[in-house]
């Protein structure tokens, strides 16, 4: 065995599916001098890969996770370790059938073959199943099982063959040395390694390793119980590891997966059983492996009965015994996504909380990200930089995963809110908003009013214009009050709490260079100008879109959304020159943003200030200091809702007072408090404003999003070369705004899409864009001022024609839609008269 070398370009800690895939792809992309460590032996060092059930259902509601899974399947197939078995997801209830119909939407959107089938169809393929236990199923023929340990060995050996890799098993990491914010050295019980890059790919142990460098990798080891029953004669007579489809019994949160002569029954139904990484036994202490903890049979007993009801002949067969049972450890995070990317320590990367179905895809994506600065598959929802401080606490992860564990096979509404560990960040107006009956939704830990029950009186006034929703699912986590608030804002004015905005200042001699390097738009503008700009990665995909204000010659303020705020802050921070005097200061906690928009907003503001707020005196896309009834504010004339108005930046101590002042003064003009339901959805969708994470991500370009300007600034910026090239060729896909023509379902109930649905031809045939992707709804929402429901979707260029008649599939029914706009031109107020 190799000994620990004294230095390396990159040290990958961990030899599970992720570490093995990562060293393979790093070597493939040309990196050399790679060292891989694991404290366990090879090929199974004792982590979660070693006991995984190894099956893959490709369809997930998340595009990012699905794409990583599909890429992983492709890699497993190329390695010859994938066996296709097909898989069923069973419904025991009508509510679940509806969820399976929604799953069909995701399957079609991501281009995966699937169909809804009746119990007889299942029985034909799984003869030992009891048909009367369920009412239908979702059939995915491409479900399969993999040999993840073999795959790991193949990938590791491929890297070894290139001479790029040194593997040292049975060596434990004892420390990580950080100097000047950069990783320098890995300490092990076999010697120290100087390293330029280090990747923590240690699965359930990752938090413990991260602590050594002072970074938080917020995942928790959690138990997934599994038993193996056999030998079952029905299975033993078939050759090979698997010949019957895998069954996921969704309503009992169980699965049944053939493994040779045995049937493995796994459960996500038990209480959340969480461990601390420090309490995982050592290899010597563990009876089986460190991540195969002692089985707690009491937790499993209820599932046993349900599994037996479904397959009594098989599980009760003569001689079939429970011969293996574990509490297997896997990694869970507070939002269910992996933890990937560079940490706050330069050069220290993470690749953790990854399942077998995503492993090779994650390895490739992280390797591309390290080598090229961006990955082909957008992984921004998994970026470790996404975490806000409260999310880095172990307690938060513990509470959120406890709440979410039972939802692993659950029916989760796309807008569903967590209940645990709320109220992490409340604006200074929180108490008075609660008194107004604010219904709070959470983003980045911030409690944001989504709508105000105090506005319920507006429902009567606007009547059917609020577009009430008849179906419970469509109306869940929604209120017609949102649409009433919207109409009132367009009619008079609205005051919106935007405290959650991530605000940071860049100041010093290198400030201009920093924003010019990061931003696509020209930021070398006069002081007092406001710039809306895309931010690109080196490959020309979106990293963000945000607003920059020039507050001084050497002083810029960046304002961005809460969800992606920490990642944006890291990205700018990474580009601040190391001159020792240019600084990035996070102002999020001490600057509160209030929005005032609507045709009466100028009258309201004018009544509170002696400063000139006329269009001539305070033009669009400018900012300056104002005194609003004695309170100093920075006002910025900009709008994400398509109305005249301002964002007002105020010190946190003054925010509650300003909020009351605006509402008091606004009342006479008809202004009301307006929630994020308007700001985030209805207001923006009427204006076809794009949102990062929905329309904009690393796989989309400015040209495809219809956001290109006539000129490109001369100054260099990240992604410039790629952007120039994109401008030279026709787009492969075009972001369009679609209008739903008829909402009536077969049952007569009007249905309203929520996002994620596939866009098809009128007759229901699938469409494909130049990237090979199928169109799907990136955002959906009411457009109350138009009296329509709007959808945003990227369409193949040939379909991106105004008036083109298409269809959207929702819960397995087709609804006619028409293309209303094929670029950023909004359907409401296309010439932006209202903003002036």
């Amino acid at each position, binding site marked *: 065995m190799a000994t620990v070398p004294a230095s390396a370009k990159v040290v990958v800690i961990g030899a599970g599916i992720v570490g093995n895939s990562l060293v393979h792809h790093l070597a493939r992309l040309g990196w050399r001098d790679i060292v891989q460590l694991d404290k366990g032996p090879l090929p199974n060092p004792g982590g979660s890969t070693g006991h995984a059930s190894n099956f893959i259902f490709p369809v997930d509601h998340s595009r990012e996770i699905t794409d990583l899974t599909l890429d992983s399947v492709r890699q497993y197939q190329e390695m010859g370790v994938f066996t296709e078995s097909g898989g069923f997801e069973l419904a025991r209830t009508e509510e679940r059938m509806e969820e399976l119909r929604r799953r069909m939407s995701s399957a079609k959107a991501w281009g995966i073959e699937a169909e809804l089938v009746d119990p007889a169809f299942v029985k034909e393929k799984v003869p030992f199943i009891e048909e009367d236990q369920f009412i239908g199923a979702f059939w995915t023929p491409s479900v399969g099982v993999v040999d993840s340990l073999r795959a790991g060995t193949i990938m590791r050996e491929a890297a070894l063959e290139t001479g790029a890799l040194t593997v040292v098993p049975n060596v434990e990491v004892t420390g990580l040395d950080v100097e000047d914010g950069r990783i320098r050295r890995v300490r092990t019980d076999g010697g120290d390694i100087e390293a330029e890059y280090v990747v923590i790919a240690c699965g359930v142990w990752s938090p413990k390793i991260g602590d050594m460098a002072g970074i938080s990798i917020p995942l928790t080891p959690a138990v997934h119980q599994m038993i193996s029953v056999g030998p079952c004669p029905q299975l033993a007579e078939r050759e090979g590891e698997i010949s019957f489809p895998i069954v996921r019994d969704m309503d009992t949160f169980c699965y049944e997966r053939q493994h040779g002569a045995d049937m493995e029954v796994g459960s996500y139904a038990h209480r959340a059983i969480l461990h601390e990484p420090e309490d995982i036994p050592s290899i010597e202490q563990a*009876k089986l492996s460190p991540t195969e903890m002692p089985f707690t049979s009491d937790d499993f007993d209820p599932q046993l009965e349900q599994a037996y009801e479904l397959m009594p002949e098989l599980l009760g067969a003569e001689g*079939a015994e429970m011969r293996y049972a574990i509490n297997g450890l896997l990694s869970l995070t507070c939002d269910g996504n992996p933890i990937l990317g560079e940490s706050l320590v330069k050069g220290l990367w993470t690749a953790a909380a990854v399942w077998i179905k995503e492993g090779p895809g994650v390895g490739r994506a992280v390797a591309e990200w390290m080598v090229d600065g961006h990955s082909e598959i957008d992984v921004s929802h998994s970026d470790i930089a996404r975490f806000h401080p409260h999310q880095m606490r172990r307690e938060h992860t513990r509470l959120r995963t406890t709440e979410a564990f039972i939802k692993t096979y659950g029916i989760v509404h796309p807008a569903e809110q967590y209940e645990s560990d709320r109220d992490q960040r409340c604006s200074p107006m929180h108490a008075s908003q609660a008194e107004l009956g604010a219904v709070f939704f959470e983003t980045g830990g911030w409690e944001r009013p989504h709508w105000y029950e105090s506005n319920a009186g507006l429902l009567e006034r606007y009547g059917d214009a609020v577009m009430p929703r008849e179906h419970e699912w469509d109306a869940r986590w929604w209120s017609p009050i949102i649409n009433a608030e919207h109409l009132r804002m367009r009619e008079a004015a609205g005051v919106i709490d935007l405290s959650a905005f991530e605000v940071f200042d860049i100041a010093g001699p290198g400030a201009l260079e920093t924003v010019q390097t990061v931003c696509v738009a020209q930021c070398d503008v006069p002081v007092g100008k406001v710039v809306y700009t895309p931010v690109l990665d080196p490959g020309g995909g979106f990293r963000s879109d945000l607003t920059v204000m020039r507050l001084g010659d050497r002083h810029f303020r960046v304002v961005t959304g809460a969800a992606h705020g920490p990642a944006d802050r890291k990205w700018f921070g990474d580009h601040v020159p190391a001159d020792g005097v240019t600084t990035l200061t996070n102002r999020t906690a001490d600057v509160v943003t209030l929005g005032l928009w609507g045709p009466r907003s100028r009258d309201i503001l004018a009544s509170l200030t002696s400063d000139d707020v006329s269009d001539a005196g305070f033009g669009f896309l400018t900012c300056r200091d104002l005194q609003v009834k004695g309170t100093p504010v920075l006002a910025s004339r900009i709008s994400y809702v398509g109305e005249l108005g301002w964002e007002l930046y105020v010190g946190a101590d003054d925010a509650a007072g300003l909020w009351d002042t605006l509402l008091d003064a606004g009342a006479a003009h008809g202004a009301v408090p307006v929630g994020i339901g308007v700001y985030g959805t209805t207001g923006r969708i009427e204006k076809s404003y794009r949102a990062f994470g929905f329309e904009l991500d690393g796989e989309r370009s400015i040209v495809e999003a219809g956001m290109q300007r006539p000129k490109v600034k001369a100054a260099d910026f990240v992604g410039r070369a790629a952007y120039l090239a994109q401008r030279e060729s026709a787009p492969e896909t075009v972001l369009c705004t679609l209008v739903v023509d008829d909402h009536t379902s077969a049952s007569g109930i009007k249905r309203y899409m929520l996002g994620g649905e596939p866009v098809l031809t009128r007759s229901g045939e699938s469409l494909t864009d130049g990237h090979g992707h199928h169109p799907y709804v990136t955002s959906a929402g009411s457009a109350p001022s138009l009296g329509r429901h709007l959808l945003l979707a990227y369409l193949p260029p040939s379909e991106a024609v105004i008036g083109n008649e298409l269809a959207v599939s929702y819960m397995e029914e087709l609804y006619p839609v028409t293309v209303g706009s094929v670029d950023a031109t909004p359907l409401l107020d296309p010439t932006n008269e209202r903003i002036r």
Partner: protein
Amino acid sequence: MTSVLVCVKRVVDSSSEVVLTDDGQAVDGRYAGFTMSAHEECAVELAVQIGDARVVTLGDADAVEQLRAALAVGCTAATHVVADPQTFGPADVARELAAVVREHDHDLVLLGNDAADSGDFQVGIRLAYELGWPVVNGVATVSVQDGTIVADGAGPNGHETYRLPLPAVVTVLEGGVEPRYPTVPGRMKAKKVPIDERQPTAEPAGPGRVRLLLPPPAPSDVQVLGKGAEAAPAVVDLFERLGVLAR
């Protein structure tokens, strides 16, 4: 049918590294989990093969897990003497087991040869003494033939067979039978069997144990046979000596 009582104890699974609690009074089960000892698993298997078997344990509330495990593989009744096992010495346990035997008129009592944690090797003999019954220790198999117990095992001078009249006490060493795993229906049935709970009949005298100590680690038996292809002849030679390769 012979009425058998089989006695089990909830112990830490000691098939991996043994970790003691900080006070040295017990083995720490955090990592390895809990089980009954391998000897007792064989005793349960023999009991189920012989006849109608009741399982008994003396332990805290968690010990019900071991009773259910025995019920899941074929025992039909269970008694739980609810007590803190750390405060009970072998004589105390024997007294409590004797009370259960008398209550149910068992013909045969099977125990493991010794518990995997405390290793006192005493309860079987003390129980027989308490009952005034014959006892045979450390056998691998037990059967009842025409009202007589036949117990087989390895003795110091070779294979030994004992014949005993009923009633009797027998302690079992692992190795004579392959304990079965539970079936799914067996496990489900076990869940529904009512467990007869009882309190100890007397205050325990205690084990008199000061503390547990771990023995020094056994010296390594690893012999390096060589490296790479050079090691092949030595490996072949070893395999031939072990009899896994024909010479």
